[in-house]
């Protein structure tokens, strides 16, 4: 049997990786301060509460900066960062999408689908995440424009809280999916988001480069 060669194949560009980890850090800051405000808000005195809201606002601006760059990068970045790579708009993308759905429904049995950068199934979820994240940025900014006394009963704040839970759900699903795909595909997904290269065999690279 011929020896299988594994190759580090460049997939993610430096800006995409930088923005990904920037968003991870700022989102963590948002979630921690948001959770404190949500669950301990009534127990805190006014000054502490407003201080936490201020930190939440700063993290919000930082996160929005990363989100804006990533959104622009969807339209201006290299092919692996573009909206076209996230959504199943090509025939190959749709094929991988259905293969992924079948792979999940078959409880991860069989050969995992082969794709270079974004999995089209995950790509759809990322697009929904971007929309929810923008919704959070906008509702957060609009809520802070309200007077403090009006904020508590505002419908905007309730929508912002609902968005918080959607983002927590997304993070849990993202981490679980990365763990599962890492386990079955062994492409070094986490380290790929650090140095930019996934691991493929030479046959896989041949198959990927043969695609339209």
């Amino acid at each position: 049997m011929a020896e299988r060669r594994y190759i580090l194949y460049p997939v993610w560009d430096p800006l995409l990786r930088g923005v990904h980890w920037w968003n991870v850090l700022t989102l963590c800051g948002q979630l921690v301060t948001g959770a404190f405000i949500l669950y301990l808000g009534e127990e805190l005195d006014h000054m502490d509460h407003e201080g936490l809201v201020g930190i939440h606002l700063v993290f919000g601006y930082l996160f929005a900066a990363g989100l804006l760059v990533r959104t622009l990068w969807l339209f201006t970045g290299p092919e692996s960062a573009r909206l076209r790579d996230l959504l199943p708009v090509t025939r190959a993308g749709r094929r991988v999408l259905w293969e992924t759905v079948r792979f999940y429904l078959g409880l991860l049995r069989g050969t995992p689908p082969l794709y270079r950068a974004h999995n089209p199934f995950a790509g759809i979820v990322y697009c929904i995440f971007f929309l929810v994240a923008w919704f959070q940025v906008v509702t957060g900014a609009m809520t802070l424009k309200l007077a403090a006394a009006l904020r508590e009963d505002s419908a905007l704040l309730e929508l912002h809280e609902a968005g918080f839970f959607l983002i927590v759900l997304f993070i849990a699903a993202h981490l679980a999916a990365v763990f599962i795909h890492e386990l079955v595909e062994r492409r070094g997904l986490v380290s790929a988001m650090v140095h930019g290269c996934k691991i493929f065999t030479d046959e896989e690279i041949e198959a990927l480069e043969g695609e339209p």
Partner: protein
Amino acid sequence: MSFYKQEVFMNGKVNIVFGLLYFAATALLGPVLLVPGKGGNFQKMAEATRAVEKVRTESAGGAPSMESLGEAVTGIMDYLKDINRIGFVKSAAHAHGNLEALLNVVAGLVILTLVVPSSYKTVLSLLFLIGAVFHSGMLYLVSVFGIRWAGNLTFIGAVAIIAGLVLLGAASIVGIRKAG
């Protein structure tokens, strides 16, 4: 393989052109819209001063009338409101407009000289354009044209400028190289 397609879409030139034209527009808007606004303030200030003077004169001969006191308080409040509406807000738009116009010219010059892939130049260029249009542009819509909802969008411009400055700084570390 290369990540990037070598295409030139926005390489900084558009920021220089936009910045210069935007600066011309903000310079024009200054005398046309801001200075007559200040004139309005002077009129309100004169009215307030007259009302206060009337109260002072009446006080010299006993208690001032409620009517004069009311006029003085209303005059002062109108003057303060006017400063806030015309002086402060319009000068904020004017100052930020000038600053962001110049920022686009400078950023455009730096982007032109950077040795980085063109997609980076495009995103940097867009960030500074969005920054000016959504920040000082929206401030102008609010203060000069009275379109209040536009004020809600200014944070997009602020965020774009911060992101643009950080990224341009990072890109300058690797992208400014010695000739030859």
